[in-house]
């Protein structure tokens, strides 16, 4: 059994609900986000390639962060989920540096100014300190909502099928862009999607074997007539775009290095 997630870029409309759900589920301090939406735009002489990628910890099967951790605070569970034991973490941040996807955050005082800096903490924050204490001076990341998975399974529920055993972000997504399930089970929905739409992982060439997969295709079938500029639609219209010259300068030269999506 190895838990994994498939993110459907064709459906994600970057509403950020996943981010909010995660912040609530884990009472995240103001300046910490475990899941992010990142957007990417290259404009090579009119040929526009843009998309928004929700990124979270990939729960890598071969996880650099785990190898790097000197205390075994970061470790991998039987079910493939990479977790951090905050009681063991010494806050050396080696994992933060070593995660090739930069999905870890070191929780320092300045990252917790309170939701309303300078005002009394809200009841939600205060309760959070009881129900989901975060240890300052340790490192954090998305944990695939292990709490929900463990609690759910202990009640005989199935992650990815039953809400109460599935990640909060997956449950809340109005676009149903997130699918959760067992990567070891060839018939699971996640594997079906990966096969059907030619799923890909971020930076597979690192050999980290992420458990988070992405699929991208055109709604309305592949005879989709939308012009290439329309690619931008899946992106960050409400967010910032990326400096095109920088891309020309930096990446224009090395197309060989840039692997194409399947």
């Amino acid at each position, binding site marked *: 059994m190895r838990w994994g997630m498939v993110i459907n870029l064709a459906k994600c409309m970057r509403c950020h609900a996943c981010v909010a759900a995660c912040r609530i589920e884990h009472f995240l301090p103001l300046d910490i986000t475990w899941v992010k939406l990142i957007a990417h735009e290259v404009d090579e002489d009119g040929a526009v390639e843009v998309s928004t990628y929700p990124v979270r910890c990939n729960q890598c099967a071969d996880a650099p962060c785990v*190898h790097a951790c000197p205390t075994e605070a970061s470790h991998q569970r039987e079910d493939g989920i990479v977790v951090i034991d905050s009681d063991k973490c010494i806050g050396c941040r080696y994992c933060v540096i070593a995660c090739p996807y930069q999905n870890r955050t070191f929780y320092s005082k300045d990252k917790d100014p309170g939701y309303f800096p300078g005002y009394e903490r809200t009841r939600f924050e205060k309760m959070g300190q009881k129900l989901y204490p975060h240890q300052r001076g340790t490192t954090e990341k998305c944990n695939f909502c292990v709490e929900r998975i463990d609690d759910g399974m202990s009640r005989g529920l199935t992650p990815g099928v039953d809400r109460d055993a599935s990640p909060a972000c997956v449950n809340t997504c109005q676009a149903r862009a997130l699918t959760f399930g067992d990567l070891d089970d060839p018939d699971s929905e996640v594997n079906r999607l990966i096969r059907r739409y030619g799923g890909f992982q971020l930076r597979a060439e690192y050999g980290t074997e992420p458990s988070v997969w992405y699929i991208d295709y055109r709604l309305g079938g592949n005879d989709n007539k939308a012009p290439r500029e329309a690619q931008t639609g899946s992106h960050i219209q409400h967010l910032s775009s990326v400096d095109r010259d920088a891309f020309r300068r930096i990446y224009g030269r090395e197309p060989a290095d840039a692997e194409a999506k399947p």
Partner: protein
Amino acid sequence: MKAQTRRQWITTHEWMVKPMRQKEWISGKGILVWLAEVFSALGMGTYLVGLLAGISEITTWAWWATVLGWVLIVLFKLPFHLAYLGRPLRFWRAIPPFTKAWRTSWLARGMFFSIVFTGAGFLQIVFWYFLRWGDLSASASDALTVLSWIVGIVAGVFILLTGVYCGFAMSYCKSLPFWNTGLLPIVFVIMGVADGLALTMGVNLITGADEAAISDLEFWSRILLVVNALLIAGYLARAYQRHSAAELAAQDLIKGSTAWVFWVLLVILGIATPLVISVATAFMEGDTEPLLIVAIVCHTIGAFALKYSVLKVGIYRSVLPGVG
């Protein structure tokens, strides 16, 4: 937009899209990591030089060099590392047998190396002290010599590893192409030894200059400096070919906002100046001490500059497909 507010930073969407600098290990508290790294290099260099110099004959300066090296590691490197931790009091968790992580973690290994060295190095220093100054019976002295050899070798090996592991820790990072190369540890070691030579010269001067020894030391540091200059040049050249993000880092190093650190502090002060001086002094008559002191100081500044520059330009590759 010039005017910024702190809110801005949580805006998530440019994260790891543009090439992004590593910050944890250089800005803010990260400065401590930099200092610790510098002291590992200096400590390693000085100790090694002292140790090697002492093989043929345990001279006063050689002994002092090992002492200095040991002090730099135990009283500077380790404390700085400790101070950096988010949870310093839990430091022991990183040390075997409390962790088995040394199988994979360069940090755990590093901890292990430094600690073994601390012990072995201490014994070596004590033994040498008695061998040099204590009046021992011939038999005792022979026995002690053997012991000092053993601990000496152990200490020597582990200080080398201590100096080398930082390099490996960094080169392990897959998404930091500028670091991610076997060359890095080598550069660090060689530079460290060169720095060690310089500091040892200093020790030598203080403990009553031994002309012959100094010129030997200078001879070696001359060679190492040249080797290093070539290594660094080669390193940057490779960076350009290896990967766009590495190229960007290299560009940043020599053109970027902190380029002055690289050019002025590292290249000019850290390498060129000592090189010129050591060449010059080779043909000079009379008192070269002032020049030597200048060389030593410059050299040491160079040591700080090297690690700073390298840490500063740790630039990540984007995580997105099709983007470098």
